């Protein structure tokens, strides 16, 4: 067994001693010069191919001259397929000839050749089909008066997006920029009131609801997951019931219920709104709570806090290193907290001395017809937030449960035998190991949460998808808007995956 762990000996030796897995022997190094080896790697071939197809698309207008004028779309698509797969076909032929010379196997019996031909046919078929569909789409849309026009993004959106940052206000600062400001402000695509701006506001709204429900559902999910394994019968069963109910009901039903059955039934008049110490108000219009207001001296406090945070993190890591090297207790959290809070306090006092309080709250006030002051989360936001939280928390609870259960029981017993307290066992033994197993499925759930936020459309929350929906209805440019939201959602999914993968790699077992 110990043989397996040895690194491969000799430079060209790809066999690992003691392994009976023959697959290892398959991956023989590609022979030839460095350039030749590079050229034969799949990623080079694939990216080269896609670059070429892009090239064909860009110069399609010029290439089209080859094809007889007035040909039906089918012929056009086949031509497109032929031209796009040309280099692949040439490569296949050259490969076949070269291989035939070397191995003396007739090409029709050479398995590699057969595979390459199949692949060529597949690629040709796929590209031709896609081309056919897109040609058809262009013609058909043009026939119905909806020809694709990418300029739609810089056109006037018309209506106001009711929620989120103000697209007019947040670009005002550009006007103060000395030289380029005015020009930048009037660039059609960035200008206020364009489709692009509206979609951006929608995107910000999506992010606003996603990050908060991500935090709340994780918190709730971890609590429920621990509850699922509690030795308290009541807690265990309540958690179980919660998970089963919210996991087995469609999210959309939950959203409708939360919005129409909970939020909309709250009193709508500000006077009647449920209130929390007259500081925060719940009404069917939304959740109103105090806002933090900037004062002239706020800068001192926030900068001190930020510097404290950075220094605190550095101190934490330093303590961890000390702990690893010397075995002294790390106490990282204590160092972090004392530095951050300490510096924050210094900043606060400094600000106070220099000229008044750095933190000021703007408390909302309920009048007869409206609320004034404070900030608000709209009723739609609250409905979406509640629905996403309950739904996702059920899934996260199950992931956490599975993670904790994967920690062998012996470890917990051993930690008890060593005299660790329950919290210590949880913090130092169970959670680090459970988290390692839980992170990949958690990533999935976070991506799902981001995607599910698009259901805000159903209850009237103006997220990216709702704005896109309005845009499509207004402009009829379904293809353009669709491509935009496709790319944005893919980017968000990839971003979450990326962040979680980085997090995952920091958790991975590090062997010294």
């Amino acid at each position, binding site marked *: 067994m110990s043989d397996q762990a040895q690194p491969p000996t000799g430079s060209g030796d790809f066999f690992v001693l003691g392994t009976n897995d023959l697959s290892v022997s398959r991956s023989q190094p590609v022979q030839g010069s460095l350039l030749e080896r590079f050229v034969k790697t799949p990623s080079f071939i694939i990216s080269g191919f896609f670059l070429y197809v892009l090239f064909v698309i860009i110069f399609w207008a010029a290439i089209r001259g080859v094809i007889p004028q007035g040909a039906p779309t089918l012929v056009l698509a086949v031509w497109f397929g032929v031209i796009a797969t040309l280099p692949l076909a040439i490569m296949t032929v050259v490969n076949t000839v070269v291989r035939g010379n070397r191995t003396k196997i007739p090409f029709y019996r050479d398995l590699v050749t057969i595979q390459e031909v199949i692949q060529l046919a597949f690629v040709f078929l796929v590209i031709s089909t896609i081309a056919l569909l897109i040609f058809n789409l262009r013609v058909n849309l043009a026939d119905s008066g909806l020809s694709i026009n990418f300029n739609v993004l810089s056109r006037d959106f018309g209506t106001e997006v009711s929620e989120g940052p103000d697209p007019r206000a947040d670009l005002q600062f550009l006007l103060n920029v000395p030289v380029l400001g005015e020009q930048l402000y009037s660039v059609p695509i960035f200008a206020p009131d364009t489709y692009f701006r509206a979609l951006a506001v929608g995107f910000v709204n999506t992010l606003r609801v996603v990050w908060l429900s991500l935090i709340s559902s994780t918190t709730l999910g971890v609590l429920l997951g621990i509850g699922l394994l509690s030795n308290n019968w009541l807690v265990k069963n309540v958690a179980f019931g919660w998970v089963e109910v919210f996991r087995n*009901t469609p999210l959309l039903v939950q959203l409708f*219920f939360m919005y129409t*059955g909970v939020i909309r039934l709250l009193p709508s008049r500000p006077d009647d709104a449920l209130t929390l110490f007259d500081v925060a108000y719940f009404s069917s219009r939304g959740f109103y709570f105090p806002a933090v207001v900037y004062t002239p001296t706020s800068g001192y406090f926030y900068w001190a806090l930020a510097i404290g945070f950075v220094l605190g993190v550095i101190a934490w890591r330093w303590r961890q290193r000390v702990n690893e090297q010397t075995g002294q207790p790390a106490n990282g959290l204590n160092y972090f907290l004392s530095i951050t809070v300490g510096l924050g306090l210094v900043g606060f006092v400094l600000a106070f001395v220099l000229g008044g309080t750095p933190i000021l709250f703007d408390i909302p006030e309920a009048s007869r017809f409206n609320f004034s002051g404070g900030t608000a989360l709209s009723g739609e936001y609250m409905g979406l937030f509640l629905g996403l939280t309950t739904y996702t928390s059920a899934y996260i609870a199950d992931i956490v449960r599975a993670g904790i259960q994967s920690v062998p029981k012996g470890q917990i017993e051993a930690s008890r035998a060593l005299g660790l307290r329950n919290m210590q066992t949880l913090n130092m033994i169970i959670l680090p190991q459970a988290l390692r197993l839980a992170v990949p499925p958690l990533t999935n759930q976070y991506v799902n949460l981001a995607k599910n936020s698009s259901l805000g459309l159903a209850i009237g929350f103006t997220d990216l998808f709702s704005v896109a929906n309005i845009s499509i209805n207004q402009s009829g440019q379904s293809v353009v808007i669709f491509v935009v939201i496709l790319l944005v959602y893919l980017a968000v999914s990839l971003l979450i995956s990326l962040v979680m993968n980085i997090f995952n790699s920091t958790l991975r077992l590090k062997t010294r």
Partner: protein
Amino acid sequence: MTDFPQRQQDLLFVAPKEAPQSRKPPANTIGVVGWLRENLFSSWANSIATVTTAIVLVWFLSTTLNWAIFNAEWTVVNNNLRLLLVGQYDQNELWRISAIAVLLTFLSGVSIGFWSQVPRPVFITIIIVLALLVFVPLISQAFPPPPVRVIASPDAAVQPMRFVGDEGQQVSVTIEQLTNRNADPDAENFPGFIETSPGSVNSRTIWSEVRQGLRTESLDLSDYSLNFSVALVDAAGNTLETLTSTPDRPETSFTVTLPETGWYGIVTDMVASETGYAWIRLDGIESYTTQTQAVERRTERYGEPIDLPCPDGGTDCTNEVAQRVLRYEGSRDLFDYFTLQVSPFFRAMVIPSLVAVAIAFVGGVVGYFMKRQPRERVRLSNSIILGVWLLLMPVSYFLLRGVRGDGGLLPFVPTTDWGGLVLTLILTAIPMVAAFPIGILLALGRANKRLVMVSTFCTIFIEVVRGVPLITILFFAKLILPFFISASGAIELAPRMMIGLSLFSGAYVAEIIRGGLQIVPRGQTEAAQALGLTPAYVTWLITMPQAIRAVIPALMSQVVSLFQDTTLVSIVGLFELLGIVELIVNGQQQYRSFQREAYIFVGLVYLVVSLVMASISRRLESTGVGAARR
């Protein structure tokens, strides 16, 4: 015992004459107390958790139950049962849905009897779901529409009502005296219902006064003297029957068997207004749902609705019977809850469920005997049953849709009329079956490391579809897909949604199957190759069966999530189970304030079906085909 040496004697143990007092465990470690101590109060932290949870739980349950029993209005479900089950499917063609349901139930029964090794819950679920569906016409006939009650009072004129009746349909009109429930607890016609017709503000205000009076017993009902007549007229304006109520003869009724199919009207005429109030109760009249649509459809079939004279001499005062749905008001006790809210639902369900179970049982017996045949015949029946299962889907789709143009026996029912639970099931079944081959091909393509291009294309497709929300794909299917084919976008919406759902779940199924392919040991493939099998045979005979068997539980979960995801088509404009609820609560004004009840009911349907499917999945994981060869 005698001659043992002393040392040995010491070692001998002689049981004492009296058994020692058995040492019982301490009383607080066994029984109820012990259980409580161990499970709820093992430590102080635990006790706090228990008490807190218990308080929250009791508060939650008491609030919920209090609301559900004493305040909620479940008639929104009871009165719209048919809509919830089959949507706006043509009422005269409902037998088709029943036929499919009967076929499915029978086939499930046969399968239970025949393949006893197939987990029964699979088919039991199907039967349970079908029990909700079977004999939907039977439901609508055995469970007559709730009687329509209209209040007649001296101050407000009763507006004329019109409806469509079938030939031979029995319609009865009754005049009932109002009874004060507080004064007469045994009274049947206690004033629990009020009529809410959105058009007539007048009668509503009057009735709220009446109700107030009845509650406080300030209204003297003994003085009953309302003189009026109720007449049933046909489309030509001929009076079929008249009923006159006088103070001497307060409660009367008539029943008419309608002579032909067409429009009818009910006209009331106040003879002399004195004091007094009465119900006019109409039985056997079908109440429609969305008024304008219903009227349009009836007009198409039965011609223009009749105009009825208005009591005040004005025009356009006629109400559809549909608009008059009853709403419970006032205080309610547990008895009322069961008789008025719960029992109508279960009364409607009993017969269909029994019929479904009976059919499934007959099927089971048939299947059992098919199994007991000689081997060749069993093999034949095996393929027959499989074939019928596979054929069932296209056959039912065709049956539900009918034939365009002159359909004859099977007139065309556009998919826009499909809805309710039926549409949900169709939108789950067809995409799932379609997703299976798509998923297998994509998984094979992606797992193939030799054909780099193929694997790249498959990977891109899978990742893009998995990376975007389902709703974008449905919008793609709604807005862009039709233009791939024609300029008019002529494909119907429901098939488009099926395509979208198939592509979406195809990508997910592909990832599941790829996971299955990865756990098939490499040695298997290599052994097969060593035996000289071609790659296609290796896949078809060796890897694929093992891979699929291993991921059956995961596929089941995919079915559950697809079943839940079908709710999204309601956003796109189809009336499946959730969409039809929106139609009910938004289309019928009188239900607008009962959205919560409707959503809870639909949520419960999803919950029950999903829970059953999830439990099947768990079972398969531990005992079923999935675990068999791992």
